[in-house]
């Protein structure tokens, strides 16, 4: 599940993931994303932070409880501005962050790794 308001980024991540054989869903804002997570129950959620309607941080907090019953990985893409901005991620279950600009390869490797350990 890729959630980002920037179309280009959605595209490139989706493309990369699809090439590796993953099924990709997309949402363009946090609200849409949350709905889809609840409905579709993806294994991995890749989300931006700054988005209209519902930002990435709130999305993470809201889905944290869902992870208890059905765990999934959340990768948060951030523009790191100040040191303690990302501290909240440590309180989240199964969440990591990746700083912009990131390498899509690295991102996909991360997803691979997650699935690798799982299965």
């Amino acid at each position, binding site marked *: 599940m890729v959630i980002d308001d*920037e179309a280009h980024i959605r595209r*490139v991540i989706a493309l990369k993931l699809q090439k590796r054989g993953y099924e990709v869903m997309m949402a363009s804002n946090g609200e849409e994303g949350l709905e889809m997570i609840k409905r579709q129950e993806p294994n991995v959620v890749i989300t931006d932070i700054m988005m209209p309607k519902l930002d990435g941080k709130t999305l993470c907090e809201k889905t944290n409880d869902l992870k208890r019953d059905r765990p999934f990985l959340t990768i948060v893409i951030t*523009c790191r501005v100040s040191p303690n901005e990302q501290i909240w991620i440590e309180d989240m279950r199964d969440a990591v962050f990746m700083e912009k600009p990131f390498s*899509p390869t690295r991102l996909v490797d991360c997803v691979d790794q997650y699935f690798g350990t799982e299965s």
Partner: protein
Amino acid sequence: MKTRWIAIGLMFVFLAGIGSFARILVAQEQRDRIQEIVDKGSYLTSLVALHPIADLNEQRRSFFLRTLTQYVSPEGLVYCFVHDRKGNLLLSLAPEGLSARIPQEIEMKSLLASELTKQDFAIRNAKDLYYEFAKPVFEEGQKRGVVRLGLHVPPLSFFSSQRVSLIAVLAFFILAAGTFVYYGVARALLPIKGVSCELQGNQSASQRLPDPGKSSGIGAIIENLEQSFDQIKAKLTQTEMQNLELATKLGVLTFEKNVIARTIDSLGFGIIITDIQDNINHANAYLLNLLKQERKEVVDRPLAEVLGHEEILAFISRQESLENKSSTNHLETTISEFSQEDTFRVSASYLRDVEGGVIGKMISIKNITSERSAEKSQHGFIANVAHEFLTPLTTIKSYNEMLMEDEIEDKEMQREFYNTISEETSRLSRLIQNLLNLAKIEMGSLSLNTGLVKTDWLVQDSLATIESPAQKKEIILEKDLPDNFPSLVGDKELLKTALINILGNAVKYSPKETTIRFSLHEDDEMVTFEVKDQGHGIGKEDLPHIFDKFYRSKDQNVAEQTGSGLGLAMTAVIIHLHGGEIEVESEPGEGSRFIIRIPKEEYHLEKH
């Protein structure tokens, strides 16, 4: 010496007193005796008058006289005559020669008396006073004769033994009492003497005082007292003057205190000053306003009572233990009693006197809501800018990576990717340009790179930049351009930035499948650019602020989009630098119309 004269004087007074007292006694006794004689005389005369004359024969007469004399003391009875009606003497009892010396008129009056009469007379050359009582004798209703009785009061000896002894005893008692009183008073005044000596002892040695040991007489004591009173008076005058001085000083201090109070009243944050026991001494106007109380309701009350905010009170107590480290410690909190949303910064410090001893505390409370929100908005701005930078960078990097790893086989897709990279690079460079310009404006060093600007180029370039995003949203770009494009004088790049900002906004804030109309006109003096969209429009509250730096509307449609709030601000500055004007017309829901007018001639910006 004076005392001796006083003593002598007193003695005379005393004697005079005794003397007059004795005289009064004598007079009193005399009066008593006279009264006695008179009473006896009247009685006897009446008695005799009752007796019939005829009975007065020989035996009877002596018996009668004997009785008479017995009754009256020998000194008292002098004579007794009984006359008949004609005045002939019937009976006579008188010392020899006395009857001759009784004045005629007395005798005559007596003889003619019709009832009991009393007369007094004095015999020539004698001091004795005689009383004659006369009464007519009636028998069977007829006047038969007259009885005349003579008594006299013997002179009183002034110095009778009784009197003398009485007076002596009295004198003794008076003297004794007097002496008693004198020494008693002297004794009683001794403590006063002690006090007066003390008082004098406090004065400087230059003030002479009589040797206290010399005499303990009342005179000395009184003298001492006099001196002491003088000194007390002097002290009093001195104290009054000191009082006056102090009052003046107090006046000055009060004035200064008022000045200080007024100064701290004019501060833009609250101040409470307390004493050591945390009772409020002063609270300035700002704070009273926050508390919504009058000064008199707050002064002298404990701090905890007036400012019942646990967090603050706890903070203040913590400050007490940290005081020595003189760290600037603040507490930032909300105070619900003042306001639900505002944030306040509280700090506390000790007030010390000249020697460094603690005399109280000062607590300041400042409303930092606006500071905080300014910080927040700045922070927000930076976050926004970072995002705006990193997003295109991410796109560029990832697309590039994919291309480099030969992951894109499709040639169409490859071209698309290259295009995207190019676009995003432009986007990034624009952003950088905007920020740089903003920095220059902030520092006051933005200058125009003036040259001749061909408006056709300007328009083409600007429109080209937004073509792609417009296409994505299926927005139609309508152009109303003249055949002959005017030229104007200005900074090419800046004008382009200005136009792109407007056009970009039009695309950003318009929903899908709407139209944006761009037109260009000229007249003699101005070139007019117009951008009209069918977007969300600008609300009345936002309209005055859209050209403010960092201003972003809270409207949903706007807040949704990412933006730095700088675009329009930048545009406005650029237009202004070119001597032009920018106008906006907008209705929410109906779109907006931006009109930019730039003079054709070069405009010299005056340095302010």
